């Protein structure tokens, strides 16, 4: 198939950007979207034009490096799929495809389609961990975790930190990302000691970078790992509780 690509080009963080039009010809169904861009780039290099800068690494949907707004949708049209796992059979001959970076004030553009998502690292730094210095902890099976809790924690922990939730949100809110990490850690018995402080610190760091959540729900639609907004409700509940919880009583069974 042949496609017309409208691609966002921007030389640097402070340069003004523009759309450039390229033809992608002889695109095969079995190519991934990024392989299609690889071929476009090889042709650009042969023509003496600088290739399009875009992020990608594992190309199997787990590292969270790839991004892209494809025809206005974060990671393109296929549900539950990262751009690297999107295949060209989802497009048709003659189609015009618009490719932009994830756009959010918290994700400044580095060059072309490459963005800076270090705001996510700042949220994790604020409390996205369970303190357990390397040493001799107790035997793993001394901490039983009820299966439903373990499974739900894992549902949340599946987040790959790609930023699609932010890109899809009209407010550029970071709630889905933050709540997924909070749910992972707050649902586990190991995560209880730091639960309230973690919740406050992460939420307040998030608010330094990202917009507010007004329950559009676009984030869960765009999420390549299909993480549900239920976790946002859990986060809001914990944040409220964190504000009046007497932390000296944390050792008590509630």
């Amino acid at each position: 198939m042949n496609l017309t690509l409208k691609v966002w080009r921007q030389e640097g963080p402070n340069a003004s950007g523009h759309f450039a039009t390229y033809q992608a010809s002889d695109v095969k169904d079995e190519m991934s979207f990024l392989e299609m861009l690889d071929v476009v780039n090889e042709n650009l290099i042969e023509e003496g034009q600088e290739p399009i800068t875009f992020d990608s690494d594992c190309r199997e949907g787990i590292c969270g490096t790839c991004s892209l707004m494809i025809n206005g949708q974060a990671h393109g049209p296929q549900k539950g799929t990262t751009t690297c796992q999107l295949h060209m059979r989802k497009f048709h001959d003659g189609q015009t495809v618009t490719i932009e970076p994830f756009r959010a004030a918290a994700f400044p553009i580095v060059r072309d389609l490459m963005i800076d998502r270090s705001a996510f690292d700042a949220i994790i730094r604020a409390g996205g961990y369970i303190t357990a210095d390397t040493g001799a902890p107790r035997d793993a099976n001394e901490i039983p975790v009820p299966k439903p809790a373990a499974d739900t924690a894992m549902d949340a922990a599946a987040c790959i930190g790609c930023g699609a939730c932010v890109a899809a949100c009209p407010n550029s809110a970071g709630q889905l990302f933050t709540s997924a990490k909070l749910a992972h850690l707050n649902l586990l018995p190991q995560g209880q000691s730091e639960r309230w402080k973690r919740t406050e610190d992460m939420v307040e760091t998030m608010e330094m970078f990202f917009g507010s959540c007004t329950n559009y729900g676009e984030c869960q639609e765009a999420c390549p790992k299909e993480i549900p907004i239920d976790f946002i409700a859990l986060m809001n509940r914990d944040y409220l509780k964190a504000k009046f919880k007497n932390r000296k009583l944390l050792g008590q069974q509630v």
Partner: protein
Amino acid sequence: MSTATISLDSKAPSGDIKDRWDNHRFDMKLVNPSNKRKFTVLVVGTGLAGAAAAATLAQLGYQVKCFTFHDSPRRAHSIAAQGGINGAKNYKNDGDSIYRLFYDTVKGGDFRARESNVYRLAQVSVDIIDQCVAQGVPFAREYGGLLDNRSFGGAQVSRTFYARGQTGQQLLLGAYQALMQQVALGRVEMHTKTELLDVVTKDGVCAGIVTRDLASGEVKSWSGHATLLCTGGYGNAFYLSTNAMNCNTTAIWRAHKKGALFANPCYTQIHPTCIPVSDEFQSKLTLMSESLRNDGRIWVPKNFDESRPADQIPEEDRDYYLERRYPAFGNLAPRDIASRAAKVVVDEGRGVGPLKNGVYLDFSESIGRLGADVVFERYGNLFDMYERITDEDPAKMPMRIYPASHYTMGGLWVDYNLMTTVPGLYALGEANFSDHGANRLGASALMQGLADGYFVAPYTVGDYLAGMLGQKPVSTDDPVFVEAEQGVRNEMHRWISIGGTKSPDYYHRELGKLVWDYCGMARDENGLEKALSEIPALREEFEKNVRVLGSPDGVNQSLEKVGRVADFFDLGELMCRDALTREESCGGHFRVEHQTEDGEAQRDDENFSFVSAWEWKEPGTPQELHKEPLVFEFVKPAQRSYK
């Protein structure tokens, strides 16, 4: 460095294998808690080994500077590991023990690993599970709330801990979170988008590194008392592999050029269950977890000109070749064996799929026996992934799979302390050669990365630092750094000034074809000789005709790539030379000339029971081979039999 100064002293302790690590830990020197902050340690790479080491060293009180070329430490390729991590907990009461994991690993590695290292690995595997659970890694649980285990990759016991099909992701996030906590506490200085481009030595001792900031293009020196390379394997030498696009050999290769010996480069692991190549544009191969072999049956048609779809081929026309050749292990035969068996049937012309380049992995029998629900609960995410890529539903049509490059057992030579032949320079995780011999068992890569990072290097690095008290690191104004920086800048300008016609990717692809054809799943003398003449010829063309546009200031992905490809050229040549020198078959290294009558790998313990460690010479001069003899006091070498 002259040959005389190289000693391959493994520093492995003697005595009862069970006490070696404990005794060694006691013998090592300690650094007073208030002195630890006087030492700077550079950690390059933030995968399991790097993130674990950086976090742990910082917790101990050392000043850590940590580097990754990714935009966040969480993106390192450890994240893509699917199946699980081994731990000799014997929770299942099925006869597992530290000694059994040790034994299985030595045997699985085809008796080409150091016993002392392997035993230590098995020993700390138990601590790793405890540590990860304490961090909140959401391992799979049983209904009672205790940890679940499964049998994996041909093990006869259930010792593999897992988090759905995303074990690597969860373990890496655990280590990453521990690392970020140390960053928040100011004990780790984190440098993302920063790529190592040279290792700097002064008087033969590692002084630090030179990096390039991938966003601004700035070239900069960093000095430290010790430097840890945790930069992963070199599977992308094949171009097509299951490694991530940016995995490369540059850090360890540049260390090699500065005097670190490179061990066993020809030991590469070809994973049996990947999706076959579909076209020439393919950029990487996708692994389908080995756990699928627990319930899937592998077969090809008996007839060479079979044209019926899989579901219409009757039982009597199918060849379940693994079950036929290895009745005891069947579809769960170890990776090297399963891979070679697939190559045999595809080479015979019995491959399946449009390009006849795969074999079937069939779930119809298990769906019939267990029901579709059970099979889907176990493998649903893998079925979805397969369908996204191939547009075929594995519940209706068997999967098509074929082996692909996946892991490299070779790497920088290290002693028992994980130190390379350059004092002060360490290699951890897949970047070193130490624990897997000639073949790695499933679910052991995560174990080794975390063992090195959490439980080995933090002790051994301290022992080295204790002797340096009062010494300042070499200043980054020292001529050794200034020259290295200039070298890096000159190199970048040289690539850009070539102004050829083809992209770095083009040459990487061509190189990969040579390495795969001649140094892939089966190697022979003629092919290797051919590769050793063709690789330098292609290298010469690459040096004259590669095209890198743009400038070294700011983001330039072609410039990042071209240096990595240049290093793959050097390494590809060394892989072939190593494979040519090793006149035996062992593990992932299969020399066609050395096989038994029924086509199994034939080791030559009398002449090849050693580690090959190669010393870099001037460009154009072949490296020099050094040998570390392997001694087996506890596990007696025998032919691996899985029949």
